[in-house]
């Protein structure tokens, strides 16, 4: 009797051991830092990107299952072809057409971002995804419900097992998978980048060159190369929208000095990320340049010191600047099939 039971346990143990050893490890993907770029901020050690984790995150990103009424996905407001923002929407709408208060930010080179949201309220890419899931004007769901739905689905438990070694789905594995996808959205192959890398036959036109010089003189201290942001917050003097009443960074830090400051966004792929500014008030890039050139109220008490002298560009300078900004378009990123809806 005793021997039989011992044998039985031995068998169970062996089967467990064998199935454990044939469970293949996820295939890790090395995160490549483009040449001369700074070190990423994101800590990959805690969540190394694997092919399985990336594909799971991609599937989640495009799946409306995350929203309460299963109508919208992350991609509803973050469309790849427009730099992962919501084209033509000043502010985005969530389920049931509920409107938010800010322009949906681009998802580009997030590995180098130290904070997220226009007010920088989110301190780590891994916890960013909780916001749209729970926000009443976005997906209006709960983490419990998302975990429940994914756990009873036919496909997800097996995908989580492949990526994280267990069919058990929790907040941590959902957020890590989403992060593996979003952290991989690297845009580093625009004409600007190709010129920097001195690729054969790629040179700036004279107009683009003049634009670059203007850009470096007037814009680059905040929109710092090569990421085209310095990751800080600033006030560009835009008058507060009395309906939205958005005071920006102050709502996070409660410090008066941060009032009306918003995150300095990257300008990569800016040709396609319209409308512009934190509340999407400018429809055309031309409007943005006009605003910085002669539209700023230089007496605004919140205005960043870099902007307190009018730039007053002439028409040609404006066109030059625009031409340079178009060199930040990276079609190989915007049309990269690896980032698109998983078929």
């Amino acid at each position: 009797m005793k021997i039989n039971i011992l044998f039985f346990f031995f068998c169970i143990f062996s089967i467990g051991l064998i199935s454990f050893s044939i469970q293949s490890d996820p295939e890790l993907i090395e995160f490549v830092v483009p040449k001369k770029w700074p070190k990423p901020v994101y800590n990959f050690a805690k969540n190394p990107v694997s092919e399985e984790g990336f594909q799971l995150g991609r599937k989640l990103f495009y799946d409306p299952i995350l929203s309460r009424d299963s109508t919208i996905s992350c991609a509803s407001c973050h469309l790849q072809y427009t730099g992962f923002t919501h084209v033509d929407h000043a502010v985005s709408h969530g389920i049931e057409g509920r409107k938010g208060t800010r322009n949906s930010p681009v998802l580009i080179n997030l590995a180098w971002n130290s904070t997220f949201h226009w007010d920088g309220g989110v301190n780590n890419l891994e916890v960013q995804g909780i916001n749209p899931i729970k926000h009443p004007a976005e997906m209006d769901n709960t983490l419990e419900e998302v975990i429940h739905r994914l756990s009873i689905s036919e496909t997800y438990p097996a995908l989580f097992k492949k990526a994280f070694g267990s069919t058990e789905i929790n907040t941590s594995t959902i957020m890590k998978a989403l992060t593996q996808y979003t952290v991989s959205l690297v845009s580093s192959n625009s004409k600007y980048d190709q010129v920097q890398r001195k690729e054969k036959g790629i040179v700036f036109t004279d107009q683009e060159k003049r634009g670059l010089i203007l850009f470096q003189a007037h814009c680059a201290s905040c929109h710092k190369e090569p990421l085209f942001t310095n990751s800080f917050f600033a006030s560009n003097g835009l008058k507060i929208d009395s309906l939205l009443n958005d005071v920006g960074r102050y709502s996070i830090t409660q410090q008066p000095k941060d009032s009306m400051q918003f995150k300095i966004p990257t300008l990569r792929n800016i040709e396609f990320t319209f409308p512009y500014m934190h509340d999407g008030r400018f429809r055309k890039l031309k409007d943005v340049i006009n605003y910085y050139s002669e539209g700023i109220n230089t007496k605004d008490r919140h205005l960043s010191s870099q902007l307190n002298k009018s730039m007053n560009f002439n028409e040609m300078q404006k066109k030059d600047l625009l031409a340079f900004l178009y060199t930040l378009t990276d079609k190989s990123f915007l049309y990269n099939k690896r980032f698109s809806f998983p078929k």
Partner: protein
Amino acid sequence: MKILLLIVTLLFQVFIFGQENSRLQLTPLFNGLPLELDKNYILDDSSWYKFSTCRFYLSNLSFFKEGKLKELDNEAYLIDLEEPTRLFIGIKNMQFDQISFSIGIDSTTNVAGILDGALDPINGMYWAWNSGYINFKLEGTSSQSTEKNKSFEFHLGGYLAPYQTIQTVNLPIQTNSDPIIIHVDIYAFIRSIDFKKSSNVMIPGLNAVKLSSVLPSIFSVLPNEN
């Protein structure tokens, strides 16, 4: 068969409990009376209080003997009056005469990204829009509240300078009882609130800092009775 079961059970216990064989027990009180959720407490000045949530984090649990650090536990514990099992903390069997701990979560943990267990954002102790943990949460109703429905909500947290809210508590231990009972009398905290000014604190900032500074005084350990 029975012997085998016994062995399996023993192995299981060793696996689960490790070297833990002593416990701390958190005992929430209100004005010296056991704190029960949804019970109406009436004070001498005829003000009344009813609590619906009392939940907080303890972390960086340290044990000292004659001023020397003997053991540091890096775990964060979520203490929740609603879940009696969450009122106990297993500790190693050792000699100590003082314990110290933080009320709340330190800044390193607050920026560490997604975390599991007690620190899973699903526990309702996490702000997503302003990433960070709520260190201490107390909700209920009171005659003192200026809200229409007499509700109050105190969600205290925030790790960014100058509004850090984490607190440290030092408690001398002059008892050898097991479990060691730590009283958490929220009376002093409630009395420190100016309800006329605010019956709600739900964001990091000066109010959260002021209220948090009272928290260490609500913890105490009684010496041995015998």
